[in-house]
Every structure is written in C-alpha cells, then in structure tokens.
C-alpha cells in the first residue's frame, strides 16, 4: 500500500495522524526539473463523490527537493518514491538522473499523465509513441525501479501500458485523474482557473477498476491500482482485478488516517478468508 503522489505532500503533513512505518511506502508529490508555482487559484471543485483539481505541479524543483526535502524524508521508516514530471523528454531525463543519485529513493513514478499543465506530460501519456519516447529515454539513465503512471484519458489504456512495458517500465500505476470540468451556473464561469482539471475520488473507481483489469491482462509487469480507493474493500477489488499493489489518493484528504485503516483492513480480510499471502489475491477475480 502506497500513498498517491500529490495527495500526501511529503509525508510530514500526516505524521500527526499515522505512523509512516505502517505504510508500504509514500510517493511524494510531482517533482519537476525547475521550480513551478502551479496554476492560479481556484484549483479545486467538489463534484458528486469526487473532486476536480488543477494544482499544476506546484513544487520547488528537484534541486530544492534534493537539498531540503530529501534529508528529511530519507529518515522515514518507509519506502519513499518520487513522482517525476516534466514538459520535455530532456526534463524528465535530467530530473530522473538527479533522483537516481539519492540512495534512499528506490524508485520513481514517471508522471506522463498530468492533465493540468500545458505540456504537463499528458501529451506523452495519451499515445503509444509519446509514452515510449519518455519511458525509453528515462530508462536509459535510470537504473532503479521505474514505475509509469498512466492517463485514463485514452481509447485503449492497454495499448499505452504495453508501449510503456516495451520501452522498459518496471511497473505501471493507474489511473491518474480523468479530465473533467465544473461550472458555476449562477456566475456562468468555470470553477477552476484552468477551466478543466483532474477528476479523482470515489466517483472514478468503476473506471479505474476496469482499466486495471484491462491492463493487467495486457502486460507482464506489475500493475499498481489507484482511483477512488477509500477502504480495504476498495483496495481488495483492485487486487482482484489484477493489481499487485494499490495507492490511496484523494481519500487521504477526507480521512488523514485512511491509509493505515486500509492496511489493517486488508489484513483482516485475509484472516477472515484464510488467505496466507495477500499476493494471492492479485488477479483472483472469478469470471
């Protein structure tokens, strides 16, 4: 069980509520080669059983991360992964190289699916050629575990996943947010400064589950499932659909202790169903 990028800050935002060592790992928020101020406010709109966000990869850049954040997060008694974003292939490569130098970061999650930034990666993530170019280039320089986060805003996510696998990805995580929009009918204005934004939360779970199921059948590398998980039951559904692990995202906002509850809940489920290894749930859906 990992916490999803962009929903868990750098972990320290949650230490009042949970013990990070209870988690399988955390994925710290989208990091880019250069600092980014992100999009203008407003960046968030609540939707039925979900929310739209348009943060736009606000972060202080990879150098700041290496210098000021890494020393702190490297002390955590949990795995720390870094989500890497960029506008060009060169940006991704340069950023990945800098993270590779950090001993205590065992993996990166390549974000080729951020819908909130012009040139924010989603352009790469919606075509097989695009994803192959980024993943291939990063693979050449990055020798630890390379996870690639996939966009759901595509006709065939299985094709995209296969392209990532062929280009050298060690695993794929899905889904990133669905591109959505919210309008204030009284003011006749969009609710986000960027007009469109990324939809997440319980509302997207059916779509995420379907895509995990499709991708797990299409690739041999591990699939990490996310999208609307807020309980152990949700997590187990993703495992059954073919995920080897899951991430918890938006639910952290609603219950800052949800991640640990999901971990405990999966243990309870396994005990109740006499399952020795959680891994035996992966793809165990009976069709």
């Amino acid at each position: 069980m990992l916490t999803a990028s962009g929903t868990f800050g750098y972990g320290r935002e949650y230490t009042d509520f949970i013990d990070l060592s209870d988690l399988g790992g955390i994925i710290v928020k989208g990091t880019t080669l250069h600092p980014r101020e992100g999009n203008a406010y407003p960046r968030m709109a609540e939707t039925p059983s979900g929310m739209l966000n348009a943060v736009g990869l606000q972060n202080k850049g990879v150098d700041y991360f290496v210098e000021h954040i890494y020393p702190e997060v490297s002390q955590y008694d949990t795995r720390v992964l870094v989500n890497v974003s960029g506008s060009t292939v060169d940006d991704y490569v340069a950023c990945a190289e800098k993270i590779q130098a950090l001993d205590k970061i065992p993996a990166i999650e390549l974000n080729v699916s951020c819908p909130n930034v012009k040139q924010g990666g989603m352009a790469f993530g919606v075509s097989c050629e695009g994803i192959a170019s980024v993943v291939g280039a990063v693979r050449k320089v990055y020798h630890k575990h390379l996870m690639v986060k996939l966009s759901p805003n595509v006709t065939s996510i299985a094709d995209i996943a296969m392209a990532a696998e062929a280009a050298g990805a060690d695993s794929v995580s899905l889904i990133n947010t669905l591109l959505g929009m919210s309008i204030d009918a009284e003011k006749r204005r969009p609710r986000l400064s960027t007009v469109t934004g990324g939809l997440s939360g319980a509302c997207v779970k059916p779509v995420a589950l379907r895509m995990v199921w499709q991708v797990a059948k299409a690739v041999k590398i591990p699939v990490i499932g996310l999208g609307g998980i807020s309980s152990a039951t949700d997590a187990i559904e993703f495992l059954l659909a073919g995920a080897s692990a899951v991430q918890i995202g938006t639910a952290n906002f609603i219950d800052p202790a949800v991640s640990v509850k999901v971990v405990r809940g999966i243990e309870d489920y396994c005990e109740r169903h006499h399952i020795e290894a959680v891994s035996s749930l992966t793809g165990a859906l009976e069709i």
Partner: protein
Amino acid sequence: MTKRIIDLRLVEKREWPQAVLLKLRSDVEPLPEAAPGQFVQVRVDQSPATYLRRPISIHFIDRERRELWLLVRKVGAGTRAMADWPLQTRVNVVFPLGHPYTLPKASKKERCLLVGGGIGLAPLLYLGKMLHEQGHHPMFLLGGRSADDLIQLNEFEQYGELCLTTEDGSAGIKGLVTAHPVLQGPSPDRIYCCGPKPMMVAVARYARQKGLWCEVSLENTMACGIGACLCCVEDTVEGHRCVCQEGPVFNINQLKWQI
C-alpha cells in the same frame, strides 16, 4: 499543536435564519489545544453532495465542558446537512488546523479592533475571549446585511464593547462596517478581521492608509485542510501559500491584494 481526528457529540444547537450554532462535546478525552483563528475540518456523511470535509472556523472553545462551538452559515448542501443534525449526532472532526491570529504580548495592554462581516464574526468570539483574558481591550465591530446576521451578541458582549452595522439599517449603524464612526476615532493597536473578501479588502485598505497592523482570515476553497493537496493557495509575497496551513490568518502585508 498536534492535529487530531476526534469524534464529538452534538449536545446543543441554536438556529437563526442564516446560521446555526453547534456545540460539540468530547465525551472521552480533553479537546486538543487550539488557538483563535484556527479551524476544524468537519465530516458530513449525511449528504451525497458532500464528499469532502467542511472547513469551519473555531467559534469558541469551552475547555471545562470540553465543548467546541461552531457557528455555521447555511450556505450549501454540507452546511445545511449540519444544520439538520439531530442532537446526539456523532461528529467527526480534524483539528486544530491552520495558523492562528497573532495575539499581542500579555505584558503590553493593547487596543484591539475585531472586525467581522456576516458569518466572519465566528472566529472573533474565541479571539475576543483570549484577548480579554490576557487583559487587552477587544472591541467588536460586527456588520451584516440585516439584524438577522448579527448573532451571538450576548456572547460577544462578555469580552468587549460592540459596534454594529447593517446594510439595511435594521440594527446598528446603516451601512458597511467601514462606515462605522468608531473607525474615525482613536486608532487601535491591532485590527483582526474576518468576512467576505470585499469587506476584508476595505478594512485592509483602511489599515494600510492608517499604517495599522492588520490580520485577515481567508476562506479559500480547500480539500485536505492540512497542506497536502495545495488547492487552497493564496498568492502571497512569497508565492503560492496554502491557506489551510500557512493561513487562514495572514497579515495584510503578506498578501498581494490590490489595497
């Protein structure tokens, strides 16, 4: 101050046309330490339209009775669901959250003007109490559209003098808070403000012109309330800052408002 997720119980409720007062009690443990200007994130499970928690400022804390008071404007699905809660409802809250108002040093007694507009008067009660307890001289300048908005006045009166305005003249001086003659009198040492943005901008402009110290409390739309989602940012002199974590209280000199 450690943030906590805690279950409280609704023990008392008072309702006005626009707002509701909810008194929430902790049955088991003492309430966490909290300061005026901080807020809580309230879970509202009772409506399909409220996926996220609702950020509500701390109206008052009665430490002896272990009570947290929330003064809530009935404005959307979430707050209306809160107003419909029957007594004894179990209410899950995360608190204390955010950066509080800056209190003067206890050694020097200061004159403090607490300016609230509409439901923005909510955080000023606990602030007024703390100022009063420390020997300062809080004065409340409270404004609303009509007398319906000027609520909890008997509570405010315990801690300082009241100056009232209403847009329709149904109570106090007719007009906006900035029309109140108290602003033409001797300048306060500090101004604390909370209310709709145009009103806060007007108060900030007054403070800037007079060279007065002034803090305002923002209520940007937020998701997490703990600085993780970066949705509630305000453009400050130091760049985008989270209202939930580095605010909700900002000194007006930190903001890039046109004042």
